[in-house]
């Protein structure tokens, strides 16, 4: 091979963040737990709720992707280099560009998840600042050595804390912990469940205060990688006043990707944005009032898609937000 192959710089940045800052976005850990304020959370049980980076840093992620999209005007390579030169904080762009707090948005969703699980009688604790990053993106982006190292450390930490079972919220973390860890980490013996599996087992009939038309978007990792196609439908069907509509072709295993997979939004931000719009358009054909999904990446992409279509009166929400709302009114 003559000249050296280079991989896209944005991808390298994501790696650095996970390896050196312990989360995808390179943000300080204290920002991670700001959402827990006022919640009663245990911290010593054998079953933990694993919240991952996606929701906790949703605000940051939103600012980051929007900043990258703006940067594409000057070229991503130059833009990311600039961002790094400024703070040596990896992708800590919010401070530079948008001044959004990291907790905004994502925290609400996590609080909703906690409340819903608690009301359904699910017992769990939370590791708080100690919660490690699963390292999944390292694997998907090709940094397998880094991933295996990270996964071993994460497993050690979980064992030290006596964790036997995990309820995982982010689809990418769920896949990583459930499917990749047993393959790459020797002796991995923790039971991993998606929050959708837990909810679908424990679900009781609920009712929304007012009728609402919802379109469900299957995240790739849930529908294709983890095969969780029936669970979200079973859950939503138990919510009275919710009319579930689905695209004719692009549902379940045929769902169209939101355009946010595997660091794609960092490498090809504009195309990612076009793909988000395409998916939003497919769902908008159903004339929904809300688009429901269950993945922080999809959530951001669909928001972007809706923004581009200039659709009015439609919101993207997480499935747990629907349940929280339905519970409150019960």
């Amino acid at each position, binding site marked *: 091979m003559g000249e050296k192959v280079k991989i896209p710089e944005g991808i390298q940045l994501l790696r650095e963040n996970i390896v050196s800052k312990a989360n995808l976005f390179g943000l300080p850990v204290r920002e991670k737990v700001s959402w827990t304020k006022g919640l009663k959370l245990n911290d010593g049980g054998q079953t933990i709720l694993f919240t991952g980076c996606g929701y906790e840093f949703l605000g940051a992620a939103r600012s980051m992707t929007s900043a990258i999209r703006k940067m594409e005007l000057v070229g991503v390579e130059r833009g990311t280099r600039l961002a790094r030169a400024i703070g040596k904080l990896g992708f800590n762009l919010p401070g530079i560009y948008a001044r959004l707090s990291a907790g905004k948005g994502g925290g609400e969703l996590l609080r909703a998840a906690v409340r819903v699980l608690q009301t359904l009688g699910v017992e769990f604790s939370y590791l708080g600042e100690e919660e490690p990053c699963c390292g999944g993106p390292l694997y998907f982006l*090709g940094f397998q050595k880094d991933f295996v190292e990270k996964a071993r450390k994460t497993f050690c930490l979980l064992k030290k804390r006596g964790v036997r079972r995990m309820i995982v919220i982010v689809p990418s973390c769920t896949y990583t912990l459930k499917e990749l860890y047993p393959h790459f980490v020797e002796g991995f013996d923790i039971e991993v469940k998606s929050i959708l599996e837990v909810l679908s087992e424990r679900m009781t009939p609920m009712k929304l205060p007012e009728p609402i038309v919802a379109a469900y978007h299957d995240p790739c990792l849930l529908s*294709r990688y983890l095969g969780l196609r029936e669970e979200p439908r079973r859950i939503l069907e138990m919510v009275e006043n919710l009319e579930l509509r689905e695209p004719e072709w692009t549902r379940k295993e045929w769902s169209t990707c939101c355009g946010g997979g595997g660091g794609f939004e960092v490498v090809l931000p504009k*195309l990612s944005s076009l793909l988000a719009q*395409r998916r939003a358009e497919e769902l908008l054909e159903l004339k929904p009032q809300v688009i429901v999904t269950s993945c922080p990446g999809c959530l951001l992409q669909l928001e972007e898609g809706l923004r581009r279509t200039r659709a009015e009166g439609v919101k993207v929400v997480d499935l747990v937000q629907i349940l929280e709302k339905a519970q409150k009114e019960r």
Partner: protein
Amino acid sequence: MSFFREYRGKLMKAAGNERIRLALSRAIASYRANTDRALSQFPHTLALAEEVRKIKERSIGQMEELTEQAAQAIRANKGKVFIARTSGEALEIIGDIVGKGKLIVNAKSMTGEEVGLREYLEGKGNEVYETDLGEFIVQKLGSKPMHILAPAIHVPKEDVAKLLTRLTGEKVPPDIAQEVAVVRKFLREKYFRADVGISGANVVAADTGTLFLIENEGNARLATGLPPIHIALVGMEKVVPTFQDACKVAEVTWRYANYTVPTYVNLISGPSKTGDIEKVTTYGAHGPRDFYVIFLDGGRVDLAKQELFRQALYCLRCGGCLYECPVFAFTAGYFGDKYFAGIGTIWTAFVTGDLGRAAPLAYTCLGCGRCRERCPMRIDVPSMIIELRRLLVESTLPAKELRD
């Protein structure tokens, strides 16, 4: 990074092209509806696809032996066979058979595209006509194929009319039936005048040495039947043990390729012959007198030895995955090199032998996995893409350089 920048420039230009988007969204909708209908009309296809997967697994495991067996069978049928290790070798062999100053009619072949056959033969002073309608349009536009089966998928009928008007000097309206008639007339005499016909093959039976060519237009049967010489360039991965196996592979291929039932399946095992005068076998009756098959290795033998990547060789080239790729829906074949989208990324890496060429493609794949759902061979493209990324990261970059 300059290659990546250049690639991204082209990719984004395509993504911004409304015509590509429109043409593809129509094509995708019709593909899904047609395939759905075809699969319910012929429900045995699903089980057959599983059987074919096993046939392919077995065949790729003994690809070189099967190729040798096919070569012997074709020679026994009085065909001539060469095994080319590289695309350069394949070009040389074909170049020597053809010579210069010849008229050549070409039936669509991805393997020909892979080695750059048309350009090579033109460069040697031959006149080459693509006969598949889509390829013909793409050739005359000076463009490149954008889909493995529907190369002109990105060109609307208005643009075709303009092209044909320029080509024939007569006013051609943007009417599809009239456009097809014009091309038919234009190419007709070329088949009769041609010195050489060139094709690929969809599948080859090792026991009988039979090449299967699936088509609807009829150009492949004319291009392989009328000229005195027929040359077929075939990737070694196309060979399966028996004629019966090949029939199964062919049916699954056309069903997923949106053909439901193809108009023509051409079976060619040797040169044309007759024994009608005194029972003396004489070659070159109505069809070609000389039949050549060039089997191409071109990285396939190495690929077959790779535990995870070998499944790329199970690809039937039905093109179904392309209709499911969300990126392809915007960019068409610009997400690709000689081969397209996720599976094309793996092919690019191993067929060109240049991982660097595949690097930008590897990070254009979303890893969404919808191609895997469509693939009749259940080829696990996302896993291969991730593994390719690992190779890119580990084999070409020392860790510290990542931070530069």
